[in-house]
């Protein structure tokens, strides 16, 4: 086929693209996967029984705010990565900012605690289960965000995969926080961050292979 014929073929007939194509793709991916993740959590782990009292504690909301802040800032990064030629600008700093914030909170809590209490602030009761649970709960969003990106045009595949994993980890952790009764910032700063980092690393490994176009 000659190039002129290819041009004629591509420009033939309906060439219009709805202006909200990208938005719709993200909306479908994120709403569906958030719903599936919530169902998965409710059916397997269950919402913590004392949710009504927990919801009155600031730390419950701080946990949710941290995980959502990571998810939202990862989304900002992805949204730029998915459009060729758009610079990332300040968006990666938002991701690091969210993590830095929770690390500062953890450092303050550890600094103010008695020496003997520090280990329990970090390990809590559930440190063994937490990272694996968050990583597992991130699977639906992981698949959904990869699907969304496959319909867009990321040119930095490893970074896009990592950001997709980070977003999925944030969604998984946000949902997990309704089950988890750990309330110490050092716990959050260690095990939540680790749980979110797992899908991010897997995303970085899978990006070059699955996001090619």
């Amino acid at each position, binding site marked *: *086929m000659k190039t*002129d014929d290819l*041009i004629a*073929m591509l420009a033939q*007939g309906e*060439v219009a693209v709805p202006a909200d194509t990208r938005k719709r793709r993200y909306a479908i991916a994120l709403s569906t996967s958030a719903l599936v993740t919530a169902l998965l959590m409710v059916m397997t782990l269950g919402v913590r029984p004392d949710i009504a009292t927990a919801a009155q504690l600031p730390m419950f909301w701080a946990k949710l705010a941290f995980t959502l802040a990571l998810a939202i800032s990862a989304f900002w990064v992805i949204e730029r990565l998915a459009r060729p*030629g758009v610079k990332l600008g300040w968006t990666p700093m938002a991701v690091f900012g969210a993590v830095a914030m929770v690390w500062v909170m953890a450092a303050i809590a550890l600094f103010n605690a008695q020496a003997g209490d520090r280990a329990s602030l970090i390990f809590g009761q559930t440190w063994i289960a937490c990272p694996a649970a968050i990583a597992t709960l991130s699977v639906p969003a992981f698949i959904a965000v990869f699907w969304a990106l496959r319909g867009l045009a990321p040119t930095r595949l490893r970074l896009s995969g990592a950001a997709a994993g980070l977003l999925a980890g944030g969604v998984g952790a946000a949902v997990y926080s309704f089950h988890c009764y750990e309330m110490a910032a050092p716990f959050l700063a260690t095990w939540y961050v680790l749980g979110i980092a797992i899908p991010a690393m897997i995303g970085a490994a899978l990006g070059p292979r699955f996001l090619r*176009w």
Partner: protein
Amino acid sequence: MSASEERLRGLLMRGLAGEATAYHAFLKELTAHLRAFLRGRLTRLPDEVEDLVQETLLAIHNQRHTYDATQPLTAWVHAIARYKLIDALRRRGAREALNDPLNDELEIFAASDIEPDDARRDLGRLLEQLPIRQRLPIVHMKLEGLSVTETARLLGMSESAVKVGVHRGLKALAAMIGRNDENR
């Protein structure tokens, strides 16, 4: 902002709104820029230039929904051309064949070349390998110029299935190029 940027951007925006003639003019002019850009960077693989021009055109068409009206068109086109160039070189295991750094995005519209070589890879033949539900909608709508309604009636498919077939078929064609080159 260069005159080419402004004119091409205007054509693309009209194309994205559904004006096929404007879109045709956009692709036509863009092709000359892509050819000059790629020819300048593939001096050791001159036979590959036209293939890569076609591959990049197909990519630009398939990903046209990722262009944001607030963004310079040069940056968008350059990023896609660069991605396709690096990808093609990697497939050939010939990254060193690239003899020019790729960082100046303004360069993409700087030169223009309307003299094509022959493409070595025949997209028409690759098209024949597509599954029938993608191939026939493309043949009738994109090659013979039938409307969606006419194609749907002719093939006994719904109108949305016809549109999906064209869309998926052109994406599959782009994916086949990658596999085809890897095996050669």
